[in-house]
């Protein structure tokens, strides 16, 4: 009887912690890359939003832990993080790539794959194996890494609400956009308006402000939103991320960064003249050049 009482108490404590999340939702953690990819698969969105899907598929969001298709720069940097960072830090708990778990990868994945927190360490290990196996963009390892991405439901569902005490947690059955209504999808039958969808802060959740102090080991990647708030806005700037990276660029959901946006973001004006300067006995041929660079973007160029 005493044993049964104890078992009952243990179950009372363990069941809510392991099965239910903070909001009472059943939390099933992914055990493989494929399971995690399926949980955040954008494939079903394509049927009705084909043009947007095509745009998105060209973006870096579509290969957020791999990076540019030709070189896989992001994957290489995550591997470097393991080699030069995690393995080198005495208190990281990582002596070998086999020791890398979700908590370790989250120092990158906080932004590159925020849904990774909904996966078990087996997924972290699978990612690490592919990071080390990847040599060429055509490799199976590269393809595996590109299964994971910042897809539709990351921005339009998971991260659609920033202030969760004010507006509540994202409704699991809804996709968030610019209006309320029905949504013809069995997984997401509702469409809800997010107050953030057209605001810079939606992007600012990842395109950051500086060190990520919420992490035990703060990292710093993008600093765009910090620059937007503390440099662009004080200069009188009024536009936001979406206006330049989606509308003015005409790229829509193929949101691009420096390689596509840089040439349109910076004006360069050059004035040059040649002349001869003279003193009593020496003539000096010379030229002077003045270069004016004007950054029209909503943040410093580059950031980091």
């Amino acid at each position, binding site marked *: 009887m005493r044993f049964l009482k104890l078992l009952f108490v243990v179950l009372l404590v363990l069941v809510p912690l392991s099965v239910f999340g903070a909001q009472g939702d059943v939390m099933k953690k992914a055990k493989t890359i494929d399971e995690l990819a399926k949980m955040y698969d954008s494939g079903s969105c394509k049927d009705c939003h084909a043009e947007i899907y095509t745009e998105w598929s060209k973006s870096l969001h579509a290969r957020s832990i791999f990076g*540019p298709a*030709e*070189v896989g*720069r992001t994957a290489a*940097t995550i591997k*470097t*993080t393991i080699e*030069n*960072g*995690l393995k080198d830090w005495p208190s990281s708990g990582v002596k070998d790539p086999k020791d890398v778990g979700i908590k370790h990868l989250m120092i*990158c994945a906080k932004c590159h794959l925020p849904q990774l927190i909904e996966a078990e360490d087996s997924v972290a290990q699978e990612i690490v194996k592919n990071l080390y196996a990847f040599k060429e963009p055509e490799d199976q390892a590269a393809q595996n890494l590109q299964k994971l991405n910042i897809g539709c439901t990351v921005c339009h569902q998971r991260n659609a609400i920033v202030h969760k005490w004010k507006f509540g947690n994202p409704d699991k059955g809804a996709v968030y956009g610019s209006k309320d209504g029905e949504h013809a999808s069995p997984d997401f039958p509702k469409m809800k308006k997010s107050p953030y969808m057209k605001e810079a802060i939606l992007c600012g959740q990842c395109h950051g402000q*500086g*060190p990520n102090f919420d992490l035990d*080991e*703060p*990292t*710093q*990647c993008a*600093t765009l939103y910090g*620059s*937007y708030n503390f*440099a*662009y806005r004080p*200069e009188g*700037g009024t536009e936001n991320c979406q206006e330049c990276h989606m509308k003015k660029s005409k790229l829509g959901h193929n949101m691009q960064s*420096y*390689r596509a946006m*840089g*040439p349109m973001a*910076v004006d*360069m*004006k*050059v004035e*040059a*003249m*040649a*002349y*001869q300067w003279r003193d009593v*006995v*020496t*003539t*000096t*041929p*010379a*030229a*002077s*050049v*003045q*270069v*004016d*660079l*004007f*950054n*029209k*973007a909503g943040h*410093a*160029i*580059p*950031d*980091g």
Partner: protein
Amino acid sequence: MTAKTKDGKVFFKDQRIYMPIPLQFGIGDKMGRGPYEKSGILRDTSLPPLRTVTEKFYIPVYNESMKEGKLARDIIANDFTVEVELWYLPYGKKEDEGNSQLWQKVTKNLSIEKGGK
């Protein structure tokens, strides 16, 4: 920025680097390299938004020597070209494949008069 003679010989070269210089672990005086060790900004030379950054270059168009005990400055070329290029170079070297990207390029042809005193 480069100055070249008509036959392509570079006789002047200079560059400016625009970037936030991150601080390694937010302490000391070393630049942090990867995102895993960057925390804070040590110095910032990036192009600030909605501002104009002006650079001025002086190009000596001469070779200097001493002739009969006097300083002489012999002109390199009367006609030459100045090229100003703005490159995006996120990492590595400009020559690395798939890395750097040319954003802007302006070419100016300049002349220095011949003759006279």
